[in-house]
């Protein structure tokens, strides 16, 4: 039971972490909460369905690499969406009062939800994972005594960890990653070093959106159904994870997401599954009471 809840919690937590990264990276650089981010995650889930449909048409859904192709497709498209949203809805408001981009984000959120509802339908959409896997990947997997780690869970945890490791390497080691950290810490000085801040901001949105979309596909893969309003609750929870971990901190978002997933899983397993959506808020309140800047948050250094 314990081990099973641990695995389930890590799976859901890894998904929260991926979404939370998008909130925290954008906040780190712009000090702005991109409330449309949950919608990009939702879009990712639908892009996964579309990608799966395309692969099926080409008779390629059974390939071993097909699940990764589906994730990649969703990431690339969502990245384009993220860059476009930044350009259209936020960049023109860069110099506006702080409330304006927030309102713009709510607008983007409504537009995306309705766009998906109108084009994809208002009812639940099935992600036909049986097309990807010959047997039911959710049922079968590695058994560890009484607990089973399904291959789907392994795929989700493995891919999420790889994406997070990749992001960490990018931010720590590359020239653009360094420019992102520099911009988060002192935008004016970054400009004086020759950094084109617009490019940095666009890159941040592109990366955050791609990670959010990957999370969307993973959820579709895990639960098998999606609808046009899944972005709201998941986005809110991932935002809570980002704040609990320390908004602006990349490792903080990763940790916050995992913590939240584990809390929900253990809470559902040992306390009550009816209050599943409440645990996130409990965690947030406890963390903020003890450490107002979040677990890994730092008042001065961001990202």
């Amino acid at each position, binding site marked *: 039971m314990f081990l099973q809840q641990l695995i389930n919690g890590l799976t859901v937590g890894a998904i929260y972490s991926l979404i939370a990264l998008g909130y925290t990276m954008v906040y780190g650089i712009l000090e702005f909460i991109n409330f449309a981010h949950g919608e990009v995650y939702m879009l990712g889930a639908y892009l996964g369905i579309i990608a799966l449909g395309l692969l099926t048409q080409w008779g390629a859904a059974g390939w071993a690499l097909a699940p990764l192709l589906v994730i990649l497709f969703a990431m690339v498209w969502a990245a384009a969406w993220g860059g476009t949203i930044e350009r259209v809805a936020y960049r023109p408001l860069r110099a506006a009062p702080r409330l304006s981009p927030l309102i713009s984000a709510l607008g983007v959120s409504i537009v995306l939800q309705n766009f998906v509802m109108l084009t994809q339908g208002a009812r639940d959409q099935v992600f036909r994972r049986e097309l990807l896997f010959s047997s039911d990947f959710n049922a079968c997997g590695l058994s560890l005594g009484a607990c089973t780690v399904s291959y789907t869970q392994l795929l989700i945890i493995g891919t999420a960890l790889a994406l997070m490791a990749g992001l960490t390497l990018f931010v720590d080691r590359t020239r653009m990653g360094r420019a992102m950290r520099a911009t988060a810490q002192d935008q*004016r000085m970054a400009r004086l070093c*020759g950094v084109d801040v617009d490019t940095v901001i666009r890159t941040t949105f592109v990366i955050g959106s791609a990670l959010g979309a990957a999370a969307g596909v993973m959820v579709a893969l895990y639960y098998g159904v999606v609808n046009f309003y899944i972005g709201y609750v998941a986005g809110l929870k991932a935002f809570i994870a980002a704040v609990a971990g320390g908004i602006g901190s990349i490792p903080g978002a990763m940790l916050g997401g995992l913590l939240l997933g584990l809390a929900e899983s253990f809470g559902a397993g040992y306390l009550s599954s009816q209050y599943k959506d409440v645990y996130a808020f409990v965690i947030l309140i406890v963390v903020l009471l003890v450490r107002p800047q979040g677990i890994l948050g730092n008042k001065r250094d961001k*990202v």
Partner: protein
Amino acid sequence: MLSRAAPAAGPAALLSLRGLRCGYGQLEVLHGISLEVRRGEIVALLGANGAGKTTAIAAISGLLPATAGAISYGGRDITGLPPDRIVALGVVQVPEGRRIFPGLTVRENLEMGAYLTENRRARAAGIERAFAMFPRLAERRDQPGGTLSGGEQQMLAIARGLMSQPALMLLDEPSLGLAPIVVDAVFDLIREIRAGGITVVLVEQNAQRSLEIADRGYLLETGAMVLEGTGAALLAHQRVRASYLGA
């Protein structure tokens, strides 16, 4: 060695501001100032708190738009260019308050100074040169910039500015808040930088020290240039002596 070739000589001035006006929103801070910096000079820009020195430097770096007037560099109009283009042309600023990236290591701060150098090996070579020039920084290479002392941060800020091998360096109050012995080191360094072929604009509160090493100087008062002359002439000038040298 320190600098790239300055743009080919046209008119004698490397940098010139003509009738520059700019400010913040409705507030105009510079009311049409003019200034000229010739190749190889150290030019001091003096003025009381709030006179607009930092504003002038920000405008040259492209951080603030000019509402009137023109800035030209190397005979070319650079008014309205974004900061990254201006850095790319060889104009670098070491800003007021040093602005070290606190969470980046010393090495990473230097990397940022060479941001526009795309070749990784060239950046690494530049960092080695900087470490040779500033052994204190080499000892602290993996320490976060925010943990350095004020003097070390100033050295790092200057070293970071040198990383892009600029032709013109704008230094905004490099001696502010430093112990006298560190101030000496900073002024020695400025001389060295000029000897390395870099033209220097030096904004300073320390009028005495800066006019001693400057070839020429300007006095800015509430957004207008009120005096211009050689370092020695300004040092001897009644107005400068009365207001800025406490004589």
